[in-house]
């Protein structure tokens, strides 16, 4: 093509070239598209696989989570909770790996033969064991999920976890001053406030009508049953969340005992109650859950109905049927 092409031909050629490049481009695009598609399919397959695995995982995880949640719930909702609690008096181990969850607003009874550690466990809940020289604790004791033996203020702990002792121990002062001692300790000074707390606590302990004219009398002049209810009123006046009772009726006559049992049932609407008792009928009558202790271990802890009808351990059954203890 040494001579210039006529203009028409030239135009055609240009168009052809253009067309060709267009086709080429199209092919390229198609090629790219193909590769892409393959890749995408692959991806989709992979994605599917991933998704499948994910699902399995998820299912498994959900199952796990439910269990964990369940366990967590018992712990979180438990008012008091011990985990692998060991307690030593010097070299003597009084509690062995105690695991126990005490639900709120219920009555839990501790039963078991003498010397098996009921009082000891009770006293770990308000750290009265601190008074015993050489008493040492391993494991966890939790109140509302907080370590009782952590950096909790002991006096505040004891305000939250009240205690009624086996032997009624009113202070040698007036009925009024006995009950006002707790609130005064925790900074309530106004006469009006104290009056109100004293009356409310006495009413809660079903004692107000009996004693309303004797508030200024010495508490040591009351009967044993009245003294014990006064001690309950005194504990309530401090504003506790938990009430620990160590054989509160063992020194009382049947009428006073019945009185205090009624009281405990009523109080469980507002307080978490833990009661130690040697009286099987008492445990059966008033408690929601029962823990059976033997030689520093909790053999089992379950609903009172179950413990007294079909206990899981033969030793529990033996004890309840009175075969030892």
């Amino acid at each position: 093509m040494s001579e210039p092409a006529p203009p028409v031909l030239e135009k055609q050629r240009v168009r052809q070239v253009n067309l060709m490049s267009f086709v080429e481009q199209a092919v390229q695009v198609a090629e790219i598209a193909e590769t892409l598609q393959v890749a995408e399919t692959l991806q989709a397959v992979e994605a599917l696989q991933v998704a499948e695995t994910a699902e399995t995982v998820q299912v498994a995880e959900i199952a796990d989570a439910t269990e964990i949640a369940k366990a967590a719930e018992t712990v979180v909702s438990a008012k008091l909770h011990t985990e692998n609690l060991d307690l030593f008096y010097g070299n003597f181990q009084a509690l062995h790996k105690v695991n126990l969850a005490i639900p709120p607003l219920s009555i839990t009874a501790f039963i078991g033969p003498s010397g098996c550690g009921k009082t000891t466990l009770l006293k770990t809940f308000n750290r009265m064991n601190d008074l015993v020289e050489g008493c040492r604790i391993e494991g966890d004791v939790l109140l509302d999920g907080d370590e009782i033996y952590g950096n909790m203020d002991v006096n505040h702990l004891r305000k939250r976890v009240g205690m009624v002792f086996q032997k009624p121990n009113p202070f040698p002062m007036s009925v009024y001053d006995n009950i006002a001692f707790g609130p005064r300790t925790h900074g309530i000074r106004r006469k009006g406030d104290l009056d109100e707390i004293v009356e409310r606590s006495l009413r809660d302990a079903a004692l107000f009508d009996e004693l309303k004219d004797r508030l200024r009398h010495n508490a040591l002049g009351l009967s044993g049953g009245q003294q014990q209810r006064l001690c309950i009123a005194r504990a309530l006046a401090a504003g506790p969340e938990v009430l620990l009772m160590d054989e509160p009726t063992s020194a009382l006559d049947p009428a006073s005992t019945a009185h205090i049992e009624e009281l405990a049932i009523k109080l469980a609407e507002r307080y978490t109650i833990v009661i130690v008792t040697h009286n099987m009928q008492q445990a059966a009558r008033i408690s929601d859950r029962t823990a059976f202790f033997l030689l520093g271990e909790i053999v089992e802890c379950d609903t009172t109905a179950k413990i007294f009808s079909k206990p899981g351990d033969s030793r529990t059954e033996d004890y309840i049927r009175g075969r030892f203890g």
Partner: protein
Amino acid sequence: MQKSAGALRERLAFIAFATAATLCVVAVLLICAFLLINGLPTLLREGPFAFIGNTTWQPATDTYGIFSMVVGSLYVTAGALVLGVPLGLLTAIYLSRFAKARTKRLLQPAVELLAGIPSVVYGFFGLVVIVPLIRQLFKVQGMGILAASIVLGIMILPTIIAVSKAALDAVPSSYYEGALALGASHERCVFSIIVPAALSGVVASVILGVGRAIGETMAVVMVVGNQVRMPVGIFEGVRTMTANIVLEMGYAADLHRQALIATALVLLIFILVINLLFSLLRKKARG
């Protein structure tokens, strides 16, 4: 045979104990009788109220009124209580409820030793330590009510500490635990529950301390100044009933001697009243 030997032994033991007890009672009665027989005539002649209420004591003119010395005794005793009771009570509380076993082992014998020191040694201590100290600090002569009160305050410490501590130790631990379980601190348990519960014992210790302080002679004579006059200030000297007796008995005769014995009689009556209070309180504490 064996039984009758035992019975005989019992019988002998009984006789021995009974004799000893009788002798004690007889001794007390003899002392009282002696004081009454020798002191009563003066007391009656002067008139008991004049004798106790009159402030003039002038053996030279046979004028015998011991009021200033009664007041002197009371001042010095009160001063001893003001110093000794808080110190003793706090020590007793510390020993009973705060001290660690080791501290207690050191402190307890020290307190007991305090009780065993002869009163003349206390007097001497007052003379060479307390009086010069007062003299320097307050620019006064030094012998007087304050010096005697300090010495007596130290002397009644063992009584107050021992009796108060026994009362504090006897407070049932159930009170303490009950208070602690309500969220009270150790300090609050001690001061709001244990000390009030031991109050009658604490008051008893104070009464015994009063008896000891009012009857103390030797240590007081050495530091109190012994001027016969109504008290004019805590730095000034007075004379106590006991000091009066011991200072003048050596040379007194006749009426003078009888007046001194009558002074002892008044002192004895004070002590009897104090002991009566003490036993009443003990009875009340036992319920």
